């Protein structure tokens, strides 16, 4: 029997090495896998490269990871936000590297990684600062920039429900980068609010097939366990 579920976030992230490229789901706080990121802070891995749409909000989740000085480099589309003060301060101090990637290029570079493409010609950012130094080509009269896949060593994502084979469904706009990060990483770790029996998810409505998920953490079980121990 194959059971990818783990009841404990600490166990789920235990082997993420220093220097890993970690894809972190979420758009702002929606879909941010806060519990997994907190576990990664406790775990202690350093010199991480983070790929995420934003560079952390407030003091939680990704912001806390950055504040703990575990992140060497971050790729994101929109670091600067009203509540991104943790990132802002380290960036201005020169303590964190930033690569700004247009949101759609972030998406299609992750998709290219997941699908095994070597590179893609995307129209986004042609003629702008963000395409400086990049290969370009005109195809059928339109201009394109060559962009390369973004592969993750690990993806940390938040889904709504999952089963022991790793099949996932999401909740509303918390879906965002989850499905495309899941397929772009060698090891995808998903936290779910509920682990359901095999066959309980509608096979027509599974958003992330289990093939893209290596570990699934049932937060409800973790909480029940913690309460039992308390």
């Amino acid at each position, binding site marked *: 029997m194959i059971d990818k579920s783990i009841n404990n976030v600490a166990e789920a992230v235990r082997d993420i090495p220093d220097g890993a490229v970690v894809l972190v789901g979420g*758009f*702002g*706080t*929606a*879909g941010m896998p806060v519990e997994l990121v907190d576990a990664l802070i406790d775990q202690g891995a350093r010199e991480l490269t983070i790929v995420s*749409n934003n560079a952390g909000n407030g003091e939680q989740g990704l912001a806390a990871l950055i504040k703990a000085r575990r992140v060497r480099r971050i790729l994101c*589309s*929109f*670091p*600067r*936000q009203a509540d991104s003060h943790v*990132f*802002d301060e380290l*960036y*201005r101090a020169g303590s964190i590297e*930033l690569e*700004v*990637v*247009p*949101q*759609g*290029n*972030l*998406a*299609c570079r*992750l*998709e290219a990684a997941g699908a095994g493409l070597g590179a893609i010609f*995307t*129209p*986004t*950012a*042609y*003629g*702008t*600062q*963000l395409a400086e130094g990049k290969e370009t080509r005109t195809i059928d009269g339109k*201009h394109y920039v060559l962009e390369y896949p973004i592969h993750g060593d690990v993806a940390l994502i938040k889904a709504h429900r999952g089963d022991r084979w790793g099949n996932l469904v*999401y*909740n*509303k*706009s*918390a*879906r*965002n*980068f*989850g*499905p*495309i990060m899941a397929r772009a990483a060698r090891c995808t770790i998903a936290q779910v609010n509920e682990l359901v029996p095999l066959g309980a998810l509608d096979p027509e409505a599974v*958003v992330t097939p289990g093939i893209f998920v290596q570990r699934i953490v049932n937060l409800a079980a973790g909480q029940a366990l913690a309460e039992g121990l308390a």
Partner: protein
Amino acid sequence: MNRRSREELAARVALDIPEGAYVNLGIGLPTTVANFLPAGGDYFLHSENGLLGMGPAPAPGEEDPELINAGKQHVTLLPGGCYFHHGDSFAMIRGGHIDICVLGAFQVARNGDLANWHLGDPDAIPAVGGAMDLAVGARQVYVMMEHLTRTGESKIVERCTYPLTGIGCVKRIYTDLAVIDVTARGLEVRETVAGLTFEHLQSITAAPLIDGRQRSALA
């Protein structure tokens, strides 16, 4: 002259959005255009974080932290709306499936170049979001902005001095003073607010304008 308020500007943009259009409204002022779309009509609002058929803000107390728009404001989903991931969402944008995108801008150039993501300050933290994808992908890119900066400089320029978001992408500019189309002939003024002459508009605009206002047969 009769400078348009922010609400009047949003209402004016809304007039040009036909029923059935797939529309992405940028963060900030463009988002308010939704408030002026006729009630009862089917307008398909897209949000790049994975929503189509986005509805208005929820009633107080009914906010769902996992149902937000690209500006990270709480929203709702209409019956017939749906959710999808960022890959699909930007396929909609880059693949030419969005009919109209309305964006704010720092500057628009005579040739339709758009600058709206970065003021070029080397100390600023750059952040682009989906603006470059929208600029290049939407079938029609409309800009809505104040005609002048707070210090009175024209935001319509011969050539953008701020870093570009997209080249030659803007089709129409809505300001508090005028509606201007970017055409092969140049910047064609379609409308001016009451009490504003073409000559006055030209005098405060840092790029040559063409008077393309249509006079009704009755005028």
